[in-house]
């Protein structure tokens, strides 16, 4: 069972079994412009919901990516350091940032559904 959820800070969570894949949304990559660098955590790092998990940089902006969930990093996207452009071309697929375990299943429930997120983005103009 796969479920897709979103944060107000424009991260997405794709939960597949007990592993969550984290990345930034299409809206986020458009706001940033051409992504030129991504700094990822180490595998094994403990992430805390709402705290910094990664950094994504375009030419004129640097943005923290916050952990949408609490858990441990089990994989990072090795392709990003060399080809950060995938974040722009394929944010929800090839441009994922990291995979993590989910310490508190309940944390998924407070995240937005795709429909809610799309409605939220509409309000941002």
């Amino acid at each position: 069972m796969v479920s897709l959820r979103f944060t107000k800070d424009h991260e997405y969570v794709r939960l597949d079994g007990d592993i969550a894949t984290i990345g930034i949304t299409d809206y986020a990559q458009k706001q940033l412009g051409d992504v030129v660098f991504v700094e990822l955590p180490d595998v094994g790092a403990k992430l805390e919901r709402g705290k910094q998990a990664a950094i994504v940089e375009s030419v004129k902006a640097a943005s923290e990516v916050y952990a949408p969930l609490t858990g441990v990093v089990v994989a990072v996207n090795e392709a990003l350091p060399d080809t950060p452009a995938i974040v722009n071309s394929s944010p929800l697929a090839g441009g994922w940032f990291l995979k993590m375990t989910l310490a508190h299943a309940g944390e998924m429930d407070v995240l937005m559904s795709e429909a809610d997120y799309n409605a939220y983005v509409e309000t941002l103009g």
Partner: protein
Amino acid sequence: MRYLPLTAVERQDMLAKIGAASMDDLFLGIPADKRLPGLMELPAGRGEWDVERLLNGLSAQNKAAGDVPFFVGAGAYRHHIPASVDHLIQRSEFLTSYTPYQPEIAQGTLHYLFEFQTQVALLTGMEVANASMYDGSTATGEAVLMAHRLTRRARAVLSGTLHPHYRTVVETLSRMAGDDVEAMVPAIAGSSEDILAAIDADTSCVVVQSPSFYGEIIDLRPIAAKAHSVGALLIAVVSEAVSFGLVESPGALGADIVVAEGQSIGNSLNFGGPYVGLFATRQKFVRQMPGRLCGETVDADGRRSFVLTLSTREQHIRRDKATSNICTNSGLCCLAFTIHMALLGETGLKRLAHLNHAHAVRLADMLRDVKGVEVLNHSFFNEFTLRVPGDAATLVEALAQAGVLAGVPVSRLEPERPHLKDLLLVASSEMNSDDDRHRLVAAMKKVLA
């Protein structure tokens, strides 16, 4: 006022267009009780000649280096600057431009920054260099902070023969930032310090100057090896950039970060500033570098172009998470450096360095004739340490009265180390003639007699 184009009539017209009754109306945002009638305690403006007369008068009170036999160094060196350098840096488009934020109309600046970065990388033996820092001392402070970020440790070990001002700059910054510094006791020229023993698993970096403050040329290789064995970085400091032409590059000896004072190429003494800091490191550390970086790219028509890049490290984007707070750096001084270096080229720089060393060796040999004076160095480039009878500061003062600027008494920079008060740093560059050297030796003999 000759710098203000508006006439009284124009000001009135403009106020009318704005809809303000008077100039004062434009300043109503200032709380009424804080508005000044003017600067009552300061004099009225002056014509050009009047300003010149006043400043000429102040200038004339100072003993300029060019007027006397001159042997003062200790981190600032007097070398000849080709006439074309000062002409070129005064080109309007260089002098009156801003930091190149609009690259389409700042390719001149960006182009020479790219060349400057390359020259600095080659001189230091490193892979990348930035577009300059304020000076050598602040560059050293920034290098230590960078090493802390890279190693995630917070303890720097400073060689005791690091320039004392540089040491104090690093200590000040570290104390304020809450980081540790261990500054070794100075091992003056001729002796060695046990810096290897101070390096341990908590050490983020070792800072070593070569040629040292006392003029000694330090073999960095064993220090680099020890530092690397515990995961620490070696920061090499060079305060006399001409030495790059003759002394092995810090990069070749294992340095991870090289910082240098670039003043001696293209820049006047200026009583201490403005100067230009050089900062170079390994490619893999580039994202933790402070300061501006210029990179190559293409424009919309595919033409080679240059632009400031990797700016997300910097304060204007990253704010409190920036690698440094530096904004304005040393653009025009770095232009003077790069033009002078381009004029010298490999051939000229090597010859200049050779000449400096030759002059210093000759002077050291001549000073052997002065009774009671001893050259302490095993090795040196263009500056060495003398032990003199009595207080070096008193000697320097007496020599100044006799019309010779003989050098820098170590006590001026190490006032809390009285056992160093008989040490005198003497520098000799290509600017010294045989006559200068004879006058120094003769004056020393006379004063010490």
